[in-house]
């Protein structure tokens, strides 16, 4: 961890206009839950689609994608990363600082509306469960998207394919793909911690927790390793 790196990264992220894109999604989530609750207080019919479909299917991964790919990827794109890399700061510390900023902002922007939504749907216990799952999911997603931004020049596209195709489509069709789906881990964690049957828990809790840690740690290690071999592209002959 490096405080200077974290401070610059946070300012860069929050100062970008793209950050404003994050705000409509949580508002939509809370607003939709409030509307549905007003029309029909029993959430049996609409709770699942709102929480799983919109909350964990769209809001959390999209916020994580926007933040996680920008926190390091934007600097690689515009070349400012050189100012961090041409210093003796250990690459591990740079990645950890970036990850902390990305996961922290994603968690803050997603866990608070998730808690409010849970509160509206079924009360405080569900709210806390959703918030906890959001925080853990933020960490795992951030590690994956941050790593993508070091591995490829198109992290947003690949991240989007992972969220929409792998998690969104295949996760519902093929049981095997659920094992590598952060969305499924967050759903299970939220269902258990929030003590609700509104959410599907298709993977077991131990698998969900262990795999969340695997994505988080594996992604971080890979990102550190790739950043050690970071190449500047310039003119070619």
């Amino acid at each position, binding site marked *: 961890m*490096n405080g*200077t*790196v974290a*401070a*610059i990264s946070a*300012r*860069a992220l929050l*100062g970008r206009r793209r950050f404003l894109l994050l705000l409509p999604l949580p508002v939509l989530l809370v607003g939709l839950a409030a509307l549905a609750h007003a029309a029909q207080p029993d959430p049996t019919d609409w709770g699942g689609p709102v929480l799983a479909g919109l909350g964990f299917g769209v809001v959390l991964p999209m916020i994580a994608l926007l933040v996680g790919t920008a926190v390091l990827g934007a600097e690689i794109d*515009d*070349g*400012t990363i*050189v*100012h*961090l*890399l*041409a*210093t*003796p*700061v*250990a*690459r591990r510390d740079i990645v950890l600082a970036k990850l902390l900023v990305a996961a922290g902002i994603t968690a803050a922007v997603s866990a608070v509306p998730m808690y409010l939504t849970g509160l509206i749907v079924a009360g405080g216990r569900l709210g806390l469960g959703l918030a906890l799952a959001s925080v853990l999911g933020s960490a795992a997603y951030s590690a994956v998207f941050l790593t993508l931004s070091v591995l490829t020049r198109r992290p947003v596209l690949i991240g989007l394919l992972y969220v929409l195709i792998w998690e969104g489509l295949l996760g519902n069709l093929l049981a095997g793909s659920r094992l590598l789906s952060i969305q499924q881990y967050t759903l299970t964690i939220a269902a258990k911690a929030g003590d609700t049957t509104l959410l599907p828990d298709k993977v077991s809790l131990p698998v969900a927790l262990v795999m969340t840690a695997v994505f988080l740690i594996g992604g971080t290690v890979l990102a550190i390793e790739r950043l*050690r*071999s*970071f*190449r*500047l592209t*310039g*003119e*070619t*002959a």
Partner: protein
Amino acid sequence: MNPTLDAGPAAAPTTTANTVELRGVSRWYGNVVAVNDVTMTLRQGVTGLLGPNGAGKTTLLHMMAGFLSPSQGEVTVAGQPAWRNPEIYRTLGLVADREAVYGFLTAWQFVLASARLHKLPDPAGSARQALAQMELTDVAQRRIETFSKGMRQRTRVAAALVHQPSVLLLDEPFNGMDPRQRMHMMALLHRRAEAGATVLFSSHILAEVEQVSGTVQVIVAGRLAASGDYRSIRRLMTHRPHVFAIRSSDDRRLAVALLAEPAVAGVDVGPAGLTVRASDYGTFARALPRIALREGVRVRQVTPSDESLESVFAYLVAGPSGVAGPNGGSA
């Protein structure tokens, strides 16, 4: 007058703390060879890395700065390998070619962050000093995004200098600077060198390198074409004839007057204007306005017709009589 001299003053005491060494370094991207078997040693003093665009200067600089792995050969800074070794940045400062800066920071915040990243004992003091060196103290509290190109460049140099590196690498540092800033920058590089640092800057502009009284490394098409004292290389370059196309209010009158000038080797008068062959670029460039003024001729257009750098460098590589070999690298 062989330009293939040793890169550094042979008598100067050399320590490894400021030495950059390349041994048989090549770098290729797929089938494209960007840098081809370059061997050079950089020591204390200012060295210009000269070559046309696309010659491989940036690739070479990136390898020296640890931002690119050589496909073959070895690059060391202060005796340590440059690649995958962040420790070299304790002694090395880099001003990269891309102009990216954190525009949302003030110059002060940016340079201070750099000092902190270098883990200096007194970050604020070092940042103040670096900003003062680059004459940025008065604007230090302004956000960098409000700066002109030259000011941004100076801010980046200040950030790269904040830890007083004994090796300073600058990729095209004079781009976007006005003449006064250039002079100031050049003086600064010399001061760094006098303080014991090894300073390398790349440029594709001959006139910039002319102001460097140090060593020049010339890169053409990925190879080290010549290396040595700038004067000998400069001489090679000035000895070639320069051709100018000139259009004026009275071509014939100007032609007669120009022929009397020693720096002019020949003049052709054609329907499109004059074609002048000058033996010395600088002397001719200074003489032309004086002559035109004296003769009362209005010069409408002066176009150096063979001044593409490629032709200059091609001439340098081929040499008038093979003086500069295709790979005059020093040992």
